[in-house]
């Protein structure tokens, strides 16, 4: 027993003790041997606990630390924010107040919210129709699904050129309705493709039962499927909202001084009066706040949304 305990205290001691063990406890050889494998297994178990946690802690730190630094810069006063080596000034919310009072960030926020909400609210019912018809009646078959998927995969730079020339002609440039229309090119195919997954599975069986009981196709959709799929539809809607909340290229080309969205406002903020990192940080914190607040609610649905329904 003593030998076993001392083995854990140091490598050299352990080695000596092991050879000592092997010589003395001849008839206990089997026991010592199994003790050895047990210890080996214990060490392996510890390693297989440590390694994943180690990887995850390092990974999480790489993600979280830059964001915490952003928060720190946003909370310090303008001069301290630039100090290298860093100094810890007095924390205050002055920067947050200033970006809304001294700069047009309120208008950026309002424009972003209007456009994202508009595009989502218009696209959602259209997408529900498409997705439901795909899931239940296989309308249009594989070609139509491929069409929707390809629409979603299009690089914005391909679409922004014709939208720019068309909007120029239709005087939709620099207008919020124009921007809403442009953002629908993102949200409509995204939602249509994503929602199919919410109409498959259990709800189809429920609906079948209702149909047998004499409900019409429309009643089955409105009274059974939509209420059952509502949480999924809501989550998909929130994801679509964030999709256009974060969109940059369309807004950059198609919006003007009065219709700039938040990402465009942030990207041009750097040039107004040099770079003011404290103010910029405060503004970026505000820009990602909605997404961070929604994150815990969306985590269940995010995987479906990101893999375009390829994974459940």
């Amino acid at each position, binding site marked *: 027993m003593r030998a076993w305990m001392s083995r854990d205290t140091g490598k050299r001691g352990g080695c000596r003790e092991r050879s000592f063990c092997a010589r003395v406890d001849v008839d206990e050889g089997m026991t010592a041997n199994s003790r050895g494998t047990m210890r080996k297994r214990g060490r392996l178990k510890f390693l297989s606990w440590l390694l994943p946690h180690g990887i995850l802690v390092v*990974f999480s730190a790489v*993600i979280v630390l830059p964001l915490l630094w952003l928060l720190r810069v946003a909370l310090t006063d303008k001069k301290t924010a630039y100090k*290298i080596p860093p100094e810890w000034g007095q924390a205050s919310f002055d920067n947050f107040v200033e970006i809304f009072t001294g700069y047009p960030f309120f208008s950026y926020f309002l424009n972003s919210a209007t456009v994202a909400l508009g595009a989502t609210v218009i696209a959602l019912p259209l997408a529900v129709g498409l997705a439901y018809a795909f899931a239940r*009646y296989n309308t249009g078959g594989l070609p139509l699904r491929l069409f929707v998927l390809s629409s979603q995969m299009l690089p914005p730079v391909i679409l922004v050129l014709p939208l720019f020339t068309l909007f120029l002609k239709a005087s939709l440039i620099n207008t919020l309705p124009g921007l809403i229309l442009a953002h629908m090119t993102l949200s409509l195919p995204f939602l249509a493709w994503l929602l199919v997954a919410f109409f498959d599975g259990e709800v189809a069986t429920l609906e079948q039962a209702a149909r047998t009981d004499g409900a019409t196709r429309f009643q089955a959709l409105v009274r059974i499927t939509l209420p059952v799929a509502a949480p999924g539809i809501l989550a998909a809607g929130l994801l679509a909202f964030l999709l256009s909340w974060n969109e940059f290229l369309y807004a950059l*080309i198609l919006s003007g001084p009065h219709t700039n969205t938040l990402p465009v406002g942030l990207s041009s903020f750097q040039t107004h009066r040099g770079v003011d990192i404290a103010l910029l940080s405060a503004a970026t914190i505000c820009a990602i706040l909605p997404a961070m607040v929604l994150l815990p609610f969306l985590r269940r649905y995010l995987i479906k949304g990101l893999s375009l329904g390829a994974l459940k």
Partner: protein
Amino acid sequence: MSVATADGLTLAGRDRRFGLLLTAPGLLSLLIVITFPLFFTLYTSVHDYTLLTPNYDTFVGTENYQEALDEEYLPGSLWVTTKFVLASIVIEFIIGFAVALSLHATRRFGSIYYLILLAPLLINPVVVGLLWRMLLHSELGIVNYTIGLVGISPVSWLGDADVAFWTVVLTDIWHQVSFMAILLVAGLAALPREPYEAARMDGASTIRCFIHITLPLMRPVIAVAILLRLIFAIKTFDIIFIMTKGGPGTATDLISYYIYRAAFFGLDVGRASAMAAGLLVIILALTAYLYRYMNSLK
């Protein structure tokens, strides 16, 4: 099976009609907001449309395509894009798989790690670009200060052509590696248990299990994750616009940014449309391949 109903349609016919009725508004909208503009791209690409003479008076046939192919810097941009896409996908796959396996193996704090993992995916790409531009500033950035503490001399993260390319790649990885990771985690969670139990009975080591069971079973998920990331990575625009504007020189001039510049700085929308049409063919081919692959799994 055909049962005639009051309006003279079979049940299957009524199903079809109801499906079409539901599809029509959405389909019409897609045709208006996506297909029509796309045809307009093709239309513009065969006309001499510049922002100085914004009209369709001059039909030029394939001239824009010819000019685009003859451009001095286009091959460079295509090469940078290829390097960027390959580098980010390979590194994201390795890191993503390591994180996914770790997350799969831990129970404790699992949901906290998972939430942190998800966070970058919802962050605005413009914010990601601004954040890292601030952190990596050569004199005032915290990164150069921190590596200075351990005796490494300051790096010009965005000023040096070779370094800037990798800075942009790493920034994109910071933003997108979680995508790969959570898709792989979902794949791992769906794996059957029996093969592992059988392998353990036969005394197979963890590494052998990984190579001979995990990797083959994960093949579909890996393929879908990589294909999706491939298509998304080709579209990268925002962080380039924020961090480097394609520079220094043409070190980070990805194709999306190149086309954007041709249209809005070169003012030649016709030629930019010709390049966009080329990019469209590549994206559609990749999407069709992805689609065929996803259907073959069902």
